[in-house]
């Protein structure tokens, strides 16, 4: 089924992402996120914005993938464990060539392949369906085990939220990744320090995060989650690790829109007309 939609989207016509300019791609992704959530009337802008540079770096610089052959057996895998950030992933997949970006405006609408949380069954490029927090790392471990059994050197990447680390199942899988020596597995924690209700530290503190992962037998890299150079270096480091690796990516929830930044209120809220216009202006104005 194909959906067409008519969300008004001033300024989007004719914008082309330049493959060589990750900053420009990130800007496009943020505008996509805004218009998708605006068109849907709901969604999660804060945690989508914090993950933009991580995803752009992964899909343009790191992942071994062929968008024209999404089921390629030897591809690297990516699991969005924090499934609510799917507007960012959908935009990245579309801009990377998995499907037509004109479909982005169907997000969260009846009949759309772009479900409110990722459903891999109908959308090319998704390696797992997610949305119930705390499950993606287990799936990623299982994938890594399976790929290793098949003698493939594919890497598996899993993006988690920092609030998500409150789920005990994450630490079950952290143990098994270490036990089974899954050195082709890289977890990325989008440490934006804010969850639905409040700051992570106010709801249920998860720090000291680096110490926790180290204690579970992981290689830990702390990086700037909004710096392509920093993330690139972190991903390169992980590639050579004999252990499973985690990149703790320091980010800002709502990054790119000043009134959303660091705010729990914007975890899952749709901007109104004036907020939308202000946000578009800020992103187009050159932040990031």
């Amino acid at each position: 089924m194909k959906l067409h939609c008519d969300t008004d989207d001033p300024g989007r016509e004719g914008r082309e992402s330049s493959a060589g300019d990750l900053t420009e791609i990130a800007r496009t992704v943020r505008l996509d996120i805004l218009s998708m959530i605006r068109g849907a009337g709901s969604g999660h802008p804060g945690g989508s914005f914090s993950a933009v540079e991580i995803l752009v770096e992964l899909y343009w610089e790191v992942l071994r993938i062929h968008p024209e052959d999404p089921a390629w057996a030897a591809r690297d895998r990516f699991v969005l464990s924090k499934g609510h950030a799917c507007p960012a992933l959908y935009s990245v997949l579309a801009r990377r060539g998995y499907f037509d970006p004109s479909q982005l405006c169907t997000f969260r609408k009846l009949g759309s392949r772009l479900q409110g949380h990722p459903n891999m069954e109908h959308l090319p490029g998704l390696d797992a369906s997610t949305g119930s927090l705390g499950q993606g790392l287990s799936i990623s471990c299982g994938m890594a085990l399976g790929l290793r059994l098949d003698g493939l050197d594919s890497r598996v990447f899993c993006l988690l939220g920092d609030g998500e680390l409150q789920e005990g199942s994450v630490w079950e899988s952290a143990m098994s990744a270490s036990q089974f020596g899954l050195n082709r597995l890289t977890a990325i924690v989008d440490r934006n320090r804010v969850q639905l209700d409040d700051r992570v530290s106010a709801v249920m503190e998860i720090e000291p995060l680096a110490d926790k992962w180290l204690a579970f037998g992981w290689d830990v890299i702390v990086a700037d989650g909004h710096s392509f150079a920093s993330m690139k270096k972190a991903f390169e480091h992980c590639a050579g690790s004999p252990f499973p690796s985690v990149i703790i990516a320091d980010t800002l929830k709502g990054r790119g829109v000043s009134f959303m930044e660091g705010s729990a209120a914007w975890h899952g809220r749709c901007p109104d007309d004036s907020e939308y216009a202000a946000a578009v202006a800020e992103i187009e104005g050159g932040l990031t």
Partner: protein
Amino acid sequence: MTAPGLKPSREGYVEGLLEAGRRNPRVVVVEGDVARSIGSYAFREEFPGRYFNLGISEQDMMGEAAGLALAGFIPFAATYGVFASGRAWDQIRTSICYMNLAVRIGGAHGGLSVGPDGATHQALEDIALMRVLPRMKVLVPADSNQTRASVLASLETDGPVYIRFGRNPVPQLYPPDAVVRFGRGNLLREGTDALIVACGALVAIAVDAAESLSMVGISAGVLDMVSIKPLDGDLLLEQTRGVSCVVTAEDHQAAGGLFGAVAEYLCRHRPLPVSPVAVQDSFGTSGSPGEVMEMFGLTSEAVAAEVLRLLRRG
């Protein structure tokens, strides 16, 4: 000591696993520190590279099974049924069923068969929990040969499967070459007055009940509904033609299990009095399996009495 003619169904699970592993190199096993109890250590000995013990972490076990299935393997994930179905239900729902993955879940020590361990370890809700999940298929074999056949049948279908089997020795009802097919029950005895539909450990008990009913001139059929989902509606319709009541028998809560499945089907397609012999909204307790079954009224006498009660009422 196991009496002659008695064998634990879990032994059939292990036999089936080994056979599945030999037939299909994509079969892998993930378990949660109960391999010695279930007996599936034998799979690790034969296929060491294809066996993963995840430790006491059922949620991770189900998620890893999902990941292995996404990588093209056929994982058998087993632990005690109470934990397999309950502890990781959301993982089964979201990471397995929602993606329609070929994960086979072994629910060991089903029902009251784990007697002395008591209520915490007696899976009395697992059929209900698994049956409501879209795409999940549910098999409840009655003996070890049927359990082995259930494991092998699961290789021939897509999507997730839950296989529930017991711990304690039960009578062998089926030959070693028994076959299980999804959506197919087995008619063990024809009857004209009543039909008893049973699963798992209650099948042998239902056969005994039908035999004792025949002594008092009542003809009760016995249908082994090994495939609870998909249910064998055709066989149910065929075997309820002419009978005046149906009694279901299972070592599970009356709500949501075999009784639920049969009653849901019959109320739409052939409204008849249907009554459960099952656990009635309570937790189990410690005792030998036989003692506990008797305490909860899961006996051939109770099944026969329920048939008589419905017939007299009708």
